[in-house]
């Protein structure tokens, strides 16, 4: 029993390690091909990434990526591919900012209100895809990716001077009414030169624990995972698959709606086109894949992503092509997918061998007995 444990742990760790090593080797080759010395680049990234202010920034970035990653992971566990996190995040953050800027309540009401608005909007937007899938059989991949485009256009339409936006002094950019100070979430101040860690990181941890608990320790989570593993088996055991699809899309979308809130509540306090970066929803997909939908794994993946992005700016400063980090991120995701498959097959083979050996041993002893 003990021996198998060790092997399992080794196999579980082998995949991500293999993936990272492969990614670094491939990136080093790419760097060499561009005529740059690779170790200098990695050295720069590590050196800069471990500075205290970089660490604060990495945690802040990772908070956002983590929530996006968990939102995607909820869908993944049910074999639902929610590509619409990007749109849900934008729409959720935008309406949360608009509502938050329009009302002024004491902090203990204001912040929950903003959170509820963001979650509701995100959930509704994802719910459209869920309902379309169950009632009309539309693939959620198509529906969510189309809803992304629509979400961007809705935000673009409403974010105009005179609608929900306000023009700045120079007349060049628009943003929503800033949140009143009661809508600002606390930050962990790490000192003048170091910066502030978003208080929202606490909520991110709670989300992670909640995800682990609901999926691993409740009947609902069991149903959800069983639908993901086999729809027909789940149906046979009395789970309504349609209901599960809609529910998990709502949960996924609700979490996706929260993605923009660390930025909104802790940093920008308003929604503007240049304040909310593009692509967080897609980063969430990468992070969920890398973390294998495991709450701790996704956290590590989110931190890794934050680290890589943090380092990319410095690479440019040092004269490297900053696109190299984009290459590295892509290679990591690919390597992870491949490495897990390789390790899974290897594990399967080992198991078969072991079972074979045991059977052979049994047969041998039987022979000895009969002989």
């Amino acid at each position: 029993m003990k021996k198998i444990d060790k092997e399992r742990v080794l196999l579980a760790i082998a995949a991500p390690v293999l993936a990272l090593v492969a990614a670094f080797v491939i990136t080093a080759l790419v760097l060499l091909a561009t005529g740059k010395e690779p170790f200098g680049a990695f050295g720069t990234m590590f050196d800069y990434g471990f500075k205290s202010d970089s660490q604060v920034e990495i945690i802040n970035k990772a908070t956002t990526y983590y929530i996006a990653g968990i939102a995607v992971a909820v869908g993944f566990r049910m074999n639902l591919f929610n590509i619409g996190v990007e749109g849900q995040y934008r729409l959720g953050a935008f309406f949360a900012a608009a509502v938050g800027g329009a009302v002024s309540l004491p902090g203990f009401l204001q912040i929950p209100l903003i959170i509820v608005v963001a979650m509701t909007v995100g959930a509704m937007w994802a719910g459209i895809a869920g309902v379309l899938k169950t009632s009309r059989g539309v693939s959620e991949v198509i529906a969510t990716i189309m809803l992304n485009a629509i979400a961007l256009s809705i935000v673009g339409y409403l974010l105009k001077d005179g609608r929900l936006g306000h023009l700045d002094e120079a007349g060049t950019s628009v943003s929503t009414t800033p949140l009143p100070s009661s809508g600002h979430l606390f930050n962990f101040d790490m000192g003048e030169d170091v910066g502030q860690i978003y208080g929202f990181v606490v909520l991110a941890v709670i989300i992670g624990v909640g995800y682990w608990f609901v999926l691993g320790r409740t009947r609902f989570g069991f149903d959800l995972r069983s639908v993901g593993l086999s729809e027909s088996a789940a149906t046979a055991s009395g789970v309504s698959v349609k209901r599960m699809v809609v529910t998990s899309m709502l949960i996924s979308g609700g979490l996706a709606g929260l993605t923009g809130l660390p930025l909104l509540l802790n940093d920008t306090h308003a929604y503007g086109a240049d304040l909310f970066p593009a692509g967080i929803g897609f980063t969430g997909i990468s992070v969920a894949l890398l973390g294998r939908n495991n709450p701790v794994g996704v956290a590590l993946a989110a931190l890794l992503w934050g680290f890589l992005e943090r380092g990319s700016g410095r690479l440019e400063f040092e004269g490297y092509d900053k696109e190299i980090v984009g290459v590295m991120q892509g290679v990591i995701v690919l390597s992870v997918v491949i490495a897990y498959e390789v390790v899974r097959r290897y594990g399967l083979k080992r198991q078969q061998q072991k079972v074979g050996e045991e059977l052979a041993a049994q047969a041998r002893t039987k022979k000895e007995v009969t002989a």
Partner: protein
Amino acid sequence: MRRVTKIAAAGIASAALALTATACGSSSKDSDTTSGSSDSSKLKVGVAYDVGGRGDHSFNDSAAAGLDKAKADFGVEVKELTAKTSDTEADREQRLEDLADAGYNPVIGVGFAYAESITAAAKKYPKTTFAIVDSVVDAKNVDSIVFTEEQSSYLAGVAAALKTKDNKVGFIGGVDIPLINKFEAGFRQGVAETNPKIKVTTQYLTPGSDLSGFSDPAKGKAAAQGMLDNGIDVIYSAAGSSGNGAIEAVAGKSGAWAIGVDSDQHEQPGLAKYKDSILTSALKNVNVAVYDAVKSVKDGAPLTGTHAYDLAKDGVGLSTSGGFIDDIKSQLDEAKSKIVSGDIKVKTTVK
């Protein structure tokens, strides 16, 4: 068995988190003891470009041209960094502070997206002079550079109106934001006041919440192609590097004209293949402003406050290279003098 995996994972995770959270390293700002430039013998200029960066043949390249001139004239040392569409405020602030921290002075933010981050950076590095293009930052050590793009766009509208044969002209905006609306407003007014019968078609590549429309030549090309197919024969695009795609599409149709933006696009080596289709360009002389900012720091009297570069000061204008608008020069000069004298007031919003 699964428990062991979980415990191991949790152990690794908490170790990693602890390592991160204890902030064991020093701050990236500690290493350099001098903030701001103490070594005044050689001027170091830091530039943070907008999305698209050097090589967009347009807005950023106009800033780059000014930088190159300063480099040639004063022998300054230069560091150029570029924005990404995935930037957060913190990323932009870090970019500017990295530059200021390494002793770059002045530090120039190209594009309105740097407004907030320059406000923050200017506070932290009071001895460094900052410059912001396309926005206004109220601080003692910031040079706010704004342009009257509606005036040059008005002239572009006049040129388009005089050159169209089918009385249909088009405007392609990169992103539907107030800054680009200024270009559209000026262009529309210029066309309408020259020939009210002309129909102006507008298309924005992305809505205001998505800034990718400034760096997507494929979108620009598709939009221009659509306009050409509808019989539009003069297309003015204010869309950063997306405009290159529009110019490429226009070059594919004989008799159609493209109007460039920000840089003199007829003279851009990267667009040399299409230059015979580029009627003129609505210049936004970011190069002049950047050069002025660098020079002022070099001369020891840094520019601060808001500086509007307008038509009267040739901060904006219409390029004449290629000679395609020489035949309508008199009308253009007349319009220009009316704008300068104030007889024509150009609107900044479309309504």
